[in-house]
């Protein structure tokens, strides 16, 4: 998948060396710090009783295409089915880079980007109750243990591949969405139990170390300086 992500980078302008009369236009490009939050998590917090989450994110533009980016957040998620009822709670930090693969027209500053992150999370899991799974229901009343058991001081590290877009809705005001594909590197598993949800990583899967996440962001760009962007406009020979 990483190799596939590299393709777009190699497919850009081949038109520069053509012998045409050309004008050069100069547009100012803003460089600065963009700060925002994940509205998807806020909406879910309002709608889903079993979820509370908050994330701020930011990026800083280094070059024409390269951004340093990071997210800082906190999540609480309760997972309950008929047999198990667990709440995971904790905070996370993700840092990495975004690479803009979109060639903007004129003075536009939209992004279609790919990036990667390294994420760390520190969290706890609380086992609210369990009902013992027994396929044989002859004795009817299943055994339920309501004693609360806490597993504290858990942590996890993972990497993410991010693809997404950011569009400038108004001046300096951006909306974005992204997809994160995550791969767990290491995690502390609680004794005699398992991490069902890792804040920042989202739910885990029995089959392996992969996870998935979505982000819906609103952010504001604080311009720090401007740089010229030269655009070559070709004119036809008469």
């Amino acid at each position, binding site marked *: *998948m990483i190799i*596939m*992500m590299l*393709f*777009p980078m190699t*497919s850009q302008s081949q038109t520069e060396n053509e012998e045409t009369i050309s004008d050069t236009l100069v547009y100012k490009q803003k460089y600065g710090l963009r700060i925002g939050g994940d509205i998807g998590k806020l909406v879910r917090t309002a709608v889903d009783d079993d979820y509370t989450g908050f994330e701020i994110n930011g990026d800083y533009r280094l070059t024409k295409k390269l951004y340093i980016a990071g997210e800082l957040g906190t999540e609480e998620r309760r*997972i309950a*089915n*008929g*047999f*198990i009822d667990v709440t995971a709670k904790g905070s996370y930090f993700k840092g990495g880079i975004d690479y803009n*693969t*979109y060639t903007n027209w004129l003075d536009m500053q939209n992004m*279609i980007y790919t990036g990667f992150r390294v994420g760390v999370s520190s969290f706890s899991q609380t086992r609210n109750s*369990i*009902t*013992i*799974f*027994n*396929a*044989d229901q*002859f*004795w009817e*009343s299943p*055994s339920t*243990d309501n004693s609360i058991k806490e597993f504290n001081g858990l942590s996890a590290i993972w990497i993410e591949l991010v*693809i997404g877009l950011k569009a400038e809705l108004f001046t300096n005001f951006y909306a974005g969405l992204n*997809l994160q*594909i995550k791969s767990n590197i290491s995690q502390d598993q609680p004794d*005699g*139990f*398992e991490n*069902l949800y890792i804040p920042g990583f989202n739910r885990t*899967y*029995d*089959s392996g170390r*992969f996870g*998935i996440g979505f982000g819906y962001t609103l952010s504001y760009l604080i311009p720090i300086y401007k740089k010229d962007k030269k655009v070559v406009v070709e004119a036809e020979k008469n």
Partner: protein
Amino acid sequence: MKRIIILLSFLALITIIALSCERDDICAEDTATTPHLIIRFYDINNQDELKQVRQLEIIGLDDDDMPFSTTPILNRTNTDSIALPLRFADEGVETKTRFQLVKDADFADNMDDSNDSNIDIIEVKYTPEFIYVSRACGYKSIFNLGTTGGLTQEIDADNWIISTEILNENIENENAAHIIIYIN
């Protein structure tokens, strides 16, 4: 641009397919969860040979020694091995379950005085322990029969169960017999 949109949707599709195929949320039937107690019957006169019990019926008894349910655990079958569900409530608390094993159960229904069914009662004593299985199945219980008194037999005038032997005091799976009962 177009390429990226295609890539994006392709990646999204792959992930959705990959994740929707997960069986994580349903406890699969072949998962080893709370085990039954496995008992096999051997011939007392030839202790390496399994022996079938004729028309065996098994009834689970409640605390007052009354049948717990109108449906028996095992319905009149010729068999040399049985799987009994164990009753449990709290982890680490010694629990017992009593079973009524009826041999020749069909004889109880006929009016012939020359034959009758033979009822023997066994009591199994064990300590449950809860073990995590998976997200979908949650926890299972395993049992420890302890070093003494794991299995007792009620003595009556005509026991068809001659003697018993605990092979494995840890009931963790259903792969092999935990208890052997010798019969005539």
